[in-house]
């Protein structure tokens, strides 16, 4: 979520339809696993394609296909250089505008470090405060959600931007080897086999603080 935020806010400039961000973590019992992040702009593909063709929108520069590919390559390179991160893969579909990045991690702490590095690369020269997005200890997997959201002037966004954020979705899916015993976020949905948990929220609700991705899952 952390490095997704700038992407989301940039996307607001480009989109007039809804979009979806998905975060998936497949966690092994030993604390290793795979993380996958997907951005699906398919429902706004007509607008995105037009703005990319024009090069600018509302005075903002719109990246070209080449620039996006270079950015993805940089993210892959950054992730691959992180300690404990391997098998970095990316997926880019420029006809439907679906982008995905996934990697294996050997322990959750290394995943946190990698996410912070990715956020720092994404922020450029801006200072980024490091956060722990995930935690795993004593058979409890935690998704933290303690970002400085108060810095986002949500009410200061235009009506159209707020509408888009309210219609855009953030989905988190976590899968485990053992069955889930408890979870803290009541909005979660649990799979029939009890080895997967899904949480869906509007991006607007996450940004204005009326919803959270925070969850503590024990097994």
């Amino acid at each position: 979520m952390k490095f997704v935020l700038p992407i989301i806010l940039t996307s607001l400039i480009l989109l007039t339809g809804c979009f979806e961000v998905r975060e998936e973590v497949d966690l092994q019992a030993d604390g290793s696993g795979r993380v996958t992040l997907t951005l699906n702009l398919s429902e706004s593909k007509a607008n995105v394609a037009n703005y990319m063709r024009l090069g600018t929108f509302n005075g903002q520069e719109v990246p070209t296909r080449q620039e996006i590919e270079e950015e993805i390559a940089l993210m892959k390179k950054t992730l691959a250089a992180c300690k404990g991160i391997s098998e970095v893969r990316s997926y880019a579909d420029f006809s439907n505008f679906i982008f995905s990045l996934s990697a294996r991690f050997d322990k959750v702490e290394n995943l946190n470090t990698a996410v912070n590095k990715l956020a720092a690369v994404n922020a450029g020269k801006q200072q980024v405060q490091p956060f722990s997005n995930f935690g795993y200890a004593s058979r409890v997997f935690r998704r933290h959600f303690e970002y400085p959201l108060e810095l986002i002037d949500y009410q200061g966004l235009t009506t159209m931007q707020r509408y888009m954020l309210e219609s855009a979705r953030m989905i988190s899916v976590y899968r485990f080897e053992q069955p889930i015993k408890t979870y803290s976020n009541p909005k979660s949905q649990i799979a029939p086999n009890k080895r997967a948990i899904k949480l869906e929220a509007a991006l607007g609700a996450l940004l204005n603080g009326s919803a959270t991705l925070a969850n503590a899952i024990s097994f």
Partner: protein
Amino acid sequence: MEGQGARAKNQGDIRILLPAKNPISNLLKPLEPMKNLALALSLLLSSTLGAQDLTSYIPSDVSFLFTWNADLVGKKVKTRQLMQQESMDLIFQQLVQGLDSIQQEEYRTLMTSPETYGINNNAPMHLAGRWNETGNFYALLMPLTNSSLLETFVARQSVLSDEPIAIEQYGDYSLAKLAGYHLAWNRQVAIVAGGRAAEVYPDFDWESYPYEEEYEYEEEEIVEEEIIEEEAPAEEEEMIEEEMAVEETPDAVAGWIAELLGRSFASSLQSHPDYLKAVAKPADAHLWVDYRQFMTMGQDLSMMGGVPGAAGAMGMAAQLFDDMYKGTFLSMTLNFNKGELEMNSHMLGQGKMIEVMQEAYDTRFNKKMWKYVDSRFLLGYYTLQVDVEKLVEGLKDIIYPAIAEMPMYGESFIRMMDVVGIVVDEDALYDLFKGDLFVAITGIRQAEIPVTSYEYDTDFNPSQVEKVIKKQYPEFLVMTSYGNEENMRKLLRLGESFNAFLNMGEYYQTAGQDESDTYYLAMKDGIMLFTNDGGLIAGRLNAGVEKAARLNKTHRKNLRKNVQAMYWDVQSTWQAIQETGVAESDAEMAEIMQGISDKVVDATFITSRKVKPSIHGKMSLKLKDSESNALEQVVGLLNQLILEAAGLERI
């Protein structure tokens, strides 16, 4: 039932008992400073019939005058019944909050039966305002049948209020200074007045003022002092507030009243020839505005003209408006007819801008446009026709001399425009765009757009699926006439070179992803067409739409006889929203549209081609209930909205 928020019937009137804090009080917050004036204004609505002209008390240089012709309205509707709406009671309660119950009762009587206190509720009432170098003042003029009854009312208020009200005598009129406003009366008229005198600035020589680069600052040693924060005692704060109140300008308001009641002005509106023309045809309500004062409102020319920076620029704009609209007046009338609200506007006088517009409106509608407009699903249109050359040249005649006379900017501006004149071929531009515009919304369409989405299995593993989503969009057509075809093609080729659109032979097209996102541009017989209706451009550019589907006679007349025409078919719009699923995708908008369509059939606005003796505009709102008077319907709607806002329902 009695209590907070409950209603009770009392002496035949509907009363609503409100809690001290309620949503309606928020609605009325902006009115608080003018609470007493607002109460007096409500009297406007409660009048019914008569013929007592008070315009002799109104100076001809007022900025605006609003007249409520109660006599005409009273013939159409029972205004006393309108005053008994629940919302009026809510508003009244807000206005009289803080007064004791006897005072409240007397004010209620004043509002519902003003004749009890000598106010003639059978004659026109006027609200006048004037803002000029002396200050901003307003006055509500009410005709009297018996001034002693009003005096009794004022005397009663003096006894009932905490502080006695002093009634001062000035010649043939009396004056009472009340909280927030002044009340004055003679045998014929009562005036409620308020306002504020202009701030007085000392004369300042801007030309010889030593600006920053010439000024030598003396270096001062700054000594840091220990700051002790101390709360001021509440009593001191009250004292400060009292002192500030004393600094207000009650004498200026008294002076304004003296001017009105003493008729100590050069001439009244009764001798203003343009005003007399404007009121020759009576209307239920009439608004008279000095357009120059309206356009330069809030801009003090003497303070800002020629001063560098933003204030100087504002001063320039104000000076320009002054030149453009001097001697220009706006007269607007409102008539409440059965099933129709009709508003007429007349721009009249000898202002330079009127002459320019009269010249610029000397145009003809390009009838070739008719064949492209499909009226079968028409939701509305807007058209404008001006002679660009006459408009631009006319504006230049006003603007150039005005700017040339301005210090600091004038000379540079004229030099700059000389250079622009070398580069720009004005005649070629006038020949390129003829100055007409036709915008029509010819329906709401629905496009099916394939998108890639995800579905999740029972273990929440995502898999890509192809879906089709429905997207609604308005179908539009924009047309404008052009003169020089070759020059217009040069412009289009420029757009083509920037990949803004693709050349498709007979027409141009943008590279959209789907039909909702694709736009077409074509030139045919001197008309440039821009639309998202691909069928029209690709298939019917030569023949146009079928004859039976074209605009009917009423619309064609609207376009032919007027230089500006706007039409909105509310019922067709609502029908299209229901049929195309817009209601499902945007429930909030659909709810608003349903509310409008329950009341309104259509709305039209036109500016007549006949521009002499005045530039005439007309707006008409045709209501669904064709039997009831528009005023009753409007008040009923307002009543409903106010009650909803207050969280109450109609009995």
